């Protein structure tokens, strides 16, 4: 991977993004969610980073062999298409390999491209950065439910990645991941995430409250939080990564309330 020197603009952007997220997190009042966990994130276990490495063929894990993929019926949904019913569903499956993904606003030194991960058919979007980058997609949907599957590659010490949704009132709903773990609220300890494993970030809006959930590959809740909001309208979904970090995004869907 080519080495590119730090871009001051990128540093500023990433710093602002982090500050914005931190400010948002600071206003979140957390209580434990009592809802049932969402549907399992039916994803392969991924590359098994850090696992014992052996030469002979490794049998597929149970997760690979038994779990139905959420995109088992890949539909040719062009990235960026918004259906008339105000449902956004992006799975990247029918876009060409390594293609740049349209309709996303990119900042920083990096790129958002189609990756043949987890499989050559069930594809995802990969954002990586030599120095920090963000990829954002505009939304204009009354926030109902948002799902986003993501998988981190290695997160170096001090590294940081983030998923976020901006609301019309200026609030940012964020999931931050550092080498210490993931945080979706300001009062919880970071939750350890396994690189190479798919997770699902879920945002729900019911009544005057937004629920944030992080689910593991088997659908178990990893972390959750709630905060009060007034009938929010989502304006943008963003991914941001610091230097040397790579994040995969798949099955981004948002349904209007």
């Amino acid at each position: 991977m080519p080495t590119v020197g730090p871009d001051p603009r990128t540093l500023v952007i990433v710093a602002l993004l982090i500050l914005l997220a931190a400010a948002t997190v600071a206003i979140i009042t957390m209580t434990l969610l009592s809802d049932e966990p969402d549907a399992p994130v039916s994803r392969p276990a991924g590359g098994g980073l850090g696992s014992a490495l052996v030469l002979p063929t490794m049998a597929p894990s149970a997760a690979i062999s038994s779990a139905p993929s959420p995109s088992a019926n890949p539909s040719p949904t062009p990235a960026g298409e918004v259906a008339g019913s105000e449902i956004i569903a992006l799975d990247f499956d029918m876009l060409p390999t390594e293609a740049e993904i349209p309709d996303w606003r990119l900042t920083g030194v990096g790129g958002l491209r189609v990756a043949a991960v987890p499989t050559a058919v069930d594809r995802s979007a990969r954002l990586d950065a030599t120095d920090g980058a963000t990829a954002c997609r505009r939304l204009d949907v009354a926030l109902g439910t948002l799902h986003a599957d993501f998988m981190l590659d290695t997160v170096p010490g001090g590294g940081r990645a983030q998923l976020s949704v901006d609301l019309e009132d200026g609030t940012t709903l964020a999931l931050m991941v550092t080498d210490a773990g993931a945080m979706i609220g300001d009062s919880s300890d970071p939750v350890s995430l396994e690189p190479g494993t798919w997770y699902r970030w879920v945002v729900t809006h019911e009544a005057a409250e937004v629920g944030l959930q992080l689910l593991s590959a088997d659908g178990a809740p990893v972390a959750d939080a709630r905060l009060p909001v007034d009938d929010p309208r989502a304006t943008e979904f963003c991914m941001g990564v610091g230097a040397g970090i790579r994040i995969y995004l798949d099955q981004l869907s948002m349904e209007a309330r």
Partner: protein
Amino acid sequence: MRSLRLLTLCLVVTALAIASPGPVTAIDELDTPASDLRVELDRLLSEHVFLTVQAMHAGLTDEDLFAAAAGALEANTVELEGAIAGIYGEEGGLRFGDLWRAHIGYVVDYTRARDAADEDAEQRAVDGMATYQDDFAAFLVAANPHLTQETVTHVLEDHLGQLQQIAELQSGDYVAVYAATRTAYGHMFELGDSLSRAIVEQFPGEFTGADVAFGPATDLRVALDNLLGEHAFLAAEVMRQADGGPDAELAASDALAANGVSLRAAIADIYGDDAGREFADIWEGHNGFYVDYVRAVFADDAVARDRAREGLEEFGGRVGDFFVSASNLISPDAVRFGLSTHTDHLLRQVDAYGAGDYEGAFSIARDAHHHMGAISDLLATGIANQFPERFLPDTAVEAVIQRPVAVGTCTRPVPR
């Protein structure tokens, strides 16, 4: 001639006898009659599994496709028959061929019976398999005193059980089909290793080099044969399933990705996690461009097809660059050439399949599988010489030979 050397032409890495200022390998150290026997039996037997699965699947779908699959499977059987005849004589080869063909027939019968819910036919197929198992075990034990009835029966039970399991799943649980297929495929390497070891013990004067054949360097070569050969066949499966519905296509693609995970692990085991990750990036892109090409051919989209072709062709260079950075004992030009040939196999296979030339597609798929052996030989030799303390502990590696290496285009051996 009781050697399988003639059957291993496609394994040979062509050494060009020109001076090289660059790195070198002690390539011949790993290429012994015993190791050739092991590698070739493993390859033919593992190929048998994939071709059998494809025939089982095609037997439920398209007549033309089944005819082509059956033809490819028969070609594999003829080569196995020739290999056995080379060791145990023409009569032994013919007897082997009869038994081998019988078990394939029973498995296909079983698959069709299950699909038709014909219990009588299913029972006839099961009875046939049981008879075959006894007869084949008796044949092997009589031919080679180093094989025991118990061991052979156990191995055959496993093989038939795995094929039956695949047959039972053919009706729609594609994820389970591919998991079972990968298991059955790996199992055949165990069978090939057991048979080749027994044959080497039986004929030590002809199959020399047993220490190398069953040492860590050849273990590495066989492991790479396993993974790269599996890659070639699973790529063909993704292509065949592309018009078989999204569940089937995705399951095949999942299996291809799982193979990629195993390859990444193998590279990381040798060169470290960062190298494994870098390799995986390249390899996943390769798989992705391949699927792009399949889709473009089926959609008759020339622009997308050309773009995918360019991506695939670039892949060969990137892998070459990867190995340049990983080792100075693996010729990047040889890797590029080997992978260029691999790419050509993939593209021609898809073109043939898309044009309805199933026989051609299967033939190219077989060439693709055999060719991967040449690449794994090249890589394993370079890696073994790079890390002799790990892979050549018992082999006296002479001073390096001043010559670069190139992968010869693979041609399937001519049946005897």
